[in-house]
């Protein structure tokens, strides 16, 4: 048991091969502290949903894999005896029941008394602010409302673990943005251990205590959102999470030499090298301060920031983002500065 009171989850050597031979998940080890919220992030078909379903008990791992909730080995337990709450991408609300009955279902199955059921349902309706929907048929609800009901239903019976499978994917962008904040607040206030699957890096950044980036059935990196963003362990992670510039240059005398100038290099080595940096790590500076010089080829006004495509810095275009309010002209020359710490050098 952790200080926060949630259930710790431990996976040992869990792989998953489907009967048709598809290897969805390579042997995976993973530990979640009680109350921790982890996001499984990766492209579609990477195995993130399979990993979630293995934890849920909807898929059993290949022989040899074990799953522990705290110290209890739950590998052989079917999902209905694991006491997990689950939220599905399609919500999976029961069309034959109204909102209230959907939320009460888990309590009913667990044999809660009618009084306790009514009390819990009331709490859930309040918490999700959907009291006025209690008697609605689920087919009459909007996407956002359905999502709230699905969440309420999943947590009503106080599960040990909450599992969310792309819960916001079916919603429009604005609602997604709002609900991701609500979900983050909700999960942290519940103190429940949660795993959240998404392919959307913005969602992953906003919700997770920790992100596990998954590619081809393997967890390629786990870390806080900040670690994942600023210190990607591989070029796959670097590219999947946010935009990344790649420039080819030469190392000489502690500097990286690029077509547009030179910048300090603190990571050692000599000869040809590929360096990576985030668009917002290249600062636009005055001519005097500039380490690199290039020409604006295109500009995109994004509201909160402006994105520039700059030529002349490296062999290709370099993407630069700035929150400055001024407008740039195509053909205008700009000077850039990149701190040595923002430069990455990845081998793969």
């Amino acid at each position: 048991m952790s200080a926060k009171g949630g259930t710790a989850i431990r996976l040992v050597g869990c792989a998953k091969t489907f009967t048709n031979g598809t290897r969805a998940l390579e042997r995976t080890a993973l530990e979640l502290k009680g109350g921790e919220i982890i996001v499984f992030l990766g492209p579609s078909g990477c195995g993130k949903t399979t990993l979630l379903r293995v934890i849920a008990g909807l898929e059993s791992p290949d022989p040899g894999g074990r799953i522990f909730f705290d110290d209890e080995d739950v590998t052989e337990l079917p999902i209905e005896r694991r006491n997990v709450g689950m939220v599905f991408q399609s919500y999976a609300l029961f069309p034959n029941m109204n909102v209230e009955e959907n939320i009460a279902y888990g309590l009913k199955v667990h044999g809660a008394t009618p009084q306790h059921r009514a009390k819990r349902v009331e709490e859930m309706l309040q918490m999700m602010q959907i009291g006025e929907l209690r008697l609605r048929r689920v087919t009459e609800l909007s996407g956002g409302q359905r999502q709230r009901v699905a969440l309420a239903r999943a947590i009503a019976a106080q599960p040990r673990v909450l599992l969310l499978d792309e819960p916001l994917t079916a919603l429009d962008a604005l609602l997604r943005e709002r609900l991701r904040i609500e979900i983050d607040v909700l999960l942290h206030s519940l103190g429940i251990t949660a795993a959240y699957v998404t392919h959307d890096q913005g969602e992953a950044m906003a919700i997770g205590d920790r992100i596990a980036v998954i590619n081809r059935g393997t967890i390629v990196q786990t870390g806080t959102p900040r670690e994942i963003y600023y210190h990607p362990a591989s070029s796959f992670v670097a590219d999947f999470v946010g935009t990344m510039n790649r420039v080819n240059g030469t190392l000489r005398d502690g500097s990286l030499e690029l077509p547009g100038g030179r910048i300090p290099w603190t990571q050692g080595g000599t000869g040809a090298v590929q360096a990576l940096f985030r668009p917002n790590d290249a600062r636009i500076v005055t001519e005097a301060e500039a380490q690199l010089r290039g020409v604006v080829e295109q500009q995109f006004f994004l509201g909160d920031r402006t994105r520039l495509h700059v030529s002349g810095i490296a062999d290709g275009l370099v993407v630069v983002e700035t929150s400055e309010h001024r407008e740039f002209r195509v053909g205008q020359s700009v000077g850039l500065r990149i701190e040595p710490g923002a430069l990455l050098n990845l081998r793969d």
Partner: protein
Amino acid sequence: MRNTENYKLLIMVTPAIAVGVAFFLLPLARLALVGAVGPSGLSAYVEVLTNPNYFSALVSTIVLSVAVTVTTLVIAGIAGVFLERNRFFGRETLISMLTLPLAFPGVVVGFMVIMLGGRTGLVGELSSFLGLGRVVFAYSLIGLFTGYIYFSIPRVILTIMAAAEKLDPALEEAARSLGASPWHVVRDVILPALRSALIASGAICFATSMGAFGTAFTLATDIKVLPIVIYTEFTLMANISTAAALSIVLGIITWAALAACRAFAGATAAAAG
């Protein structure tokens, strides 16, 4: 976990399988066997094709069923497309009336034909009123034909309407905007879209006509259609092995017609998609 679930699923499907095997597959195998072990042995099947009586019954049943199928497709095709594509007062009532005979057994359909073309039938009354003499057709091939169309129209109309419902009106509008005449629209837009529905309902219509027994039984017609021949051989002649062989042949024809149309409709659907 999946294993115990498979076990439960097996329990759930077992009663249906048991009923199917005990009361259908085994008896059918027995029927096929009886057809082959009669006095003439396996040749009972050959006899069906070589004996002129049986063979002509087979041919006339097939010809009748094909004629019924084509006629029904035309009638139900026109009415079905019309009813699906137009909204007017009384439409629902028309549809209800056109699908009413769906649940009539063959005997009742036979009786309906007697009402129309029997000795005191409507057509006879009208023709004698017009001084053309009393026309009686119920007990002839025409009566049988009329009865088969009577029970086929409701089934086919429903299938056609379901298919016409999916017809994209934009296609017709596009064709018209390109200058197509109503006839061209029918030929180039509507018929191709209804193709699989026509094939499917046509096959059902054919198979039902091949096996229909009640109507011919009620009309007590002289026309030797296969089901009547089977019945006569079995009950009156006690010629059980021939009856069995004929039943098997009839069953194979109807099953093959349905299977072929399904394969064909499936293939065209795949090609279209």
